[in-house]
């Protein structure tokens, strides 16, 4: 059913529900936030010049938005996703473009709070909803179809509420990976998504198209792995925030161009290291960042960590390295074989806390600690993110026996908690240094 013919579930009169003034304020504040973060990130003493491309991609109403607007004028379709588990390969193979819809804008939380009155709900969910409702972010106007798996409760309900504004395709994600029906169910969902995308663009997806996209994404991953090598040394040439920004840009940008730009960035990082230009302080505490998603421009936690003498050298985030790990490995090249390869890549290696028992997450954290030489873990959950909160307990215990200290933080979508978080992070960094 198209959204026009569907009775709204959460709102009766869409038009005029939010006042002009509020809409304007949300837009203005969001734009300001994007500008402020961009300024903060680009004013660092040492920063690769190639990073400004990625700033552009992520910027509020930036050049990427203009590009997509033009694409849409030519009849193109844009798919918005709210999770790493949606295979962009299929979207691109159908001739559409894919963008990440999750919102990191603080001001957008308020409209959702007004409508739902659920103060305890995850702020990222609320911000995404608010952004869509008031059209606060130009990218929301671009989206023809939202695709999201039913991961956590918040996202699942968000998808339902969003249907009042935009067409949504919810994927039935099995949350117990060990079940025997699991891989079949998820494969069927991926196949269903394929037909939905075909219907959207009116173009049937051939095996060749998919394989071409798979190779593009695999080569993107290959380059990103090169970038990660630059975070393993004693001193590093890229901040955790920048590395995260680059990873997130992959979900907004044309992947072919993205890969090229990352390759340029990697070359520049090589050069910076040869010239002895490094980011962060000498002897900064090496931090692994984990926990809830941190979507641009909500880079509060990493920016506090990196301003307090910590260096984020790796992460275990679905908004960070997880976006660019786990290649699709093709074996059988029948259509079924290709679809299976996609389905499994977007499911089994994913360490989202919505899965249970999810031991792979702790395994991944430990693996990264070893590979990147992390000294401590900062685990952050968004207020109301039960899944991450619960997993934090488990992970902390496990890390304790491995002798790795962990700092558990909680944050909201506002600036109110900055000072309190800063104090705790500073103490943690000091402690890590004292342990040496």
């Amino acid at each position: 059913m198209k959204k026009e013919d569907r009775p709204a579930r959460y709102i009766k009169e869409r038009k005029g529900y939010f006042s002009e003034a509020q809409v304007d304020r949300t837009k203005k504040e969001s734009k300001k936030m994007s500008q402020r973060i961009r300024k903060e990130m680009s004013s660092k003493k040492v920063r690769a010049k190639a990073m400004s491309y990625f700033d552009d991609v992520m910027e509020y109403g930036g050049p990427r938005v203009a590009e997509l607007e033009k694409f849409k004028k030519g009849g193109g379709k844009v798919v918005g996703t709210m999770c790493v588990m949606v295979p962009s390969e299929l979207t691109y193979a159908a001739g559409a473009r894919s963008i990440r819809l999750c919102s990191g804008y603080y001001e957008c939380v308020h409209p959702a709070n007004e409508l739902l009155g659920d103060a305890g709900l995850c702020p990222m969910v609320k911000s995404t909803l608010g952004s869509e409702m008031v059209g606060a972010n130009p990218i929301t106007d671009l989206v023809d179809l939202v695709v999201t798996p039913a991961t956590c409760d918040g996202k699942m309900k968000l998808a339902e509420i969003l249907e009042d504004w935009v067409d949504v395709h919810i994927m039935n994600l099995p949350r117990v990976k060990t079940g025997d029906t699991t891989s079949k169910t998820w494969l069927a969902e991926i196949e269903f998504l394929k037909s939905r995308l075909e219907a959207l663009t009116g173009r049937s997806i051939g095996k060749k198209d998919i394989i071409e996209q798979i190779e593009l994404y695999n080569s993107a991953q290959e380059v990103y792995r090169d970038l990660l090598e630059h975070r393993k040394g004693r001193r590093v040439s890229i901040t955790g925030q920048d590395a995260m920004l680059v990873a997130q840009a992959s979900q907004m940008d044309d992947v072919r161009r993205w890969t090229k730009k990352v390759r340029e960035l990697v070359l520049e990082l090589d050069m910076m290291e040869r010239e002895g230009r490094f980011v962060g302080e000498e002897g900064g505490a090496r931090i692994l960042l984990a926990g809830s998603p941190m979507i641009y421009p909500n880079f509060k936690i990493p920016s506090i960590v990196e301003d307090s003498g910590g260096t984020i050298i790796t992460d275990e985030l679905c908004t960070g390295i997880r976006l660019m790990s786990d290649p699709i490995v093709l074996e059988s090249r029948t259509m079924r074989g290709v679809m299976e390869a996609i389905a499994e890549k977007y499911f089994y290696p994913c360490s989202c806390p919505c899965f249970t028992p999810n031991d792979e997450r702790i395994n991944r954290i430990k693996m990264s600690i070893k590979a990147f030489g992390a000294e401590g873990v900062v685990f952050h959950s968004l207020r109301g993110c039960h899944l991450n909160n619960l997993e934090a307990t488990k992970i902390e215990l496990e890390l304790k026996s491995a002798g790795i200290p962990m700092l558990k933080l909680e944050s909201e979508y506002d600036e109110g908690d900055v000072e309190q978080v800063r104090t705790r992070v500073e103490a943690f960094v000091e402690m890590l240094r004292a342990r040496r």
Partner: protein
Amino acid sequence: MSADYKGRNIRPLRVVFQLGAFAFFIGQLLGLPPFGTEPVLRRVFLPNAACRYMNTAPTSCFYYQLQDSLAHGASDLFASALIMLLVVILLVLVLGRTWCSWLCPFGFVQELFSDLRELVGIPFLRMGFASRVLLRRVKYAILILTVLITVPLGISALGLAGCTGALSLPFCQVCPAKGFFTIFQQILGLEPWSTRLPLLAWASLLIFLGTNVFMRMPFCRICPMGGLMALFAGGSMIYLKKDPDRCTKCRICLRVCPMDHDRVYEEMGRIDVGGEDCTLCARCVEMCPEEGCLSLAAGPFVLVTSRPPKKVGLGRIFQRIRGNDR
């Protein structure tokens, strides 16, 4: 120019072994003179070699010899059967089931069928857990049944020793290899077309060919020789090694495993994840995308280990020259 992402490439080497073994077991392919009807080497047995019904093969199928010496065990109190068994156990303890994926001619044939299926584009059947487990048990059942039929024949007190013929080679009656290799020889002109196959052999050959249309390695899943080896392959010197600390649980290994050997994916404790149904084909090692996660190892030495897929072939060069635009 299409480029491919590849991990390790082990199969070509394996095919060299398989072809070598195939040529050896069926020596005439290489233009070797026939060994005669009772070749000198006929007493030589290997865990899996040419079917006894390959007229000119230099060696002989172990399972044939096992059945034979069990059914005629009366004369030497099963001593020869036991010695044979010990030799094979030793061979398996050293080489593991490389006997299967690197040497067995019949396993090779099934792999070629898989290649053909892939070429034509027929997807294979993905079995659920229950069917996988069931098939796994069938091979042990066949093994036990073989022993239960042949041993009484060999116990002289039972007075059955006279009943030889079909009953003393129970599995050969239903083994699809018999039909396959007989017809194979007829096609090569090594065996006259006048040789007639028993009906049972025809039936099992047809079932074999039929299942190969939609299944990977259908016979290996129930092969009693594989079952016998599986009993001792758990601690072999050549083994499939997993570093669980590097495993991301991506499940690629299980997806590509032609034997649906669950343990390679499930196991997160033990280092040796082979044994049971794993024929050491190293497909999973080729495909596992994590550096050093899965390896083929011999004792303390790692022979080959997994790595992230890299662009190979011409595509790699194009990528260097033109950035990423292919």
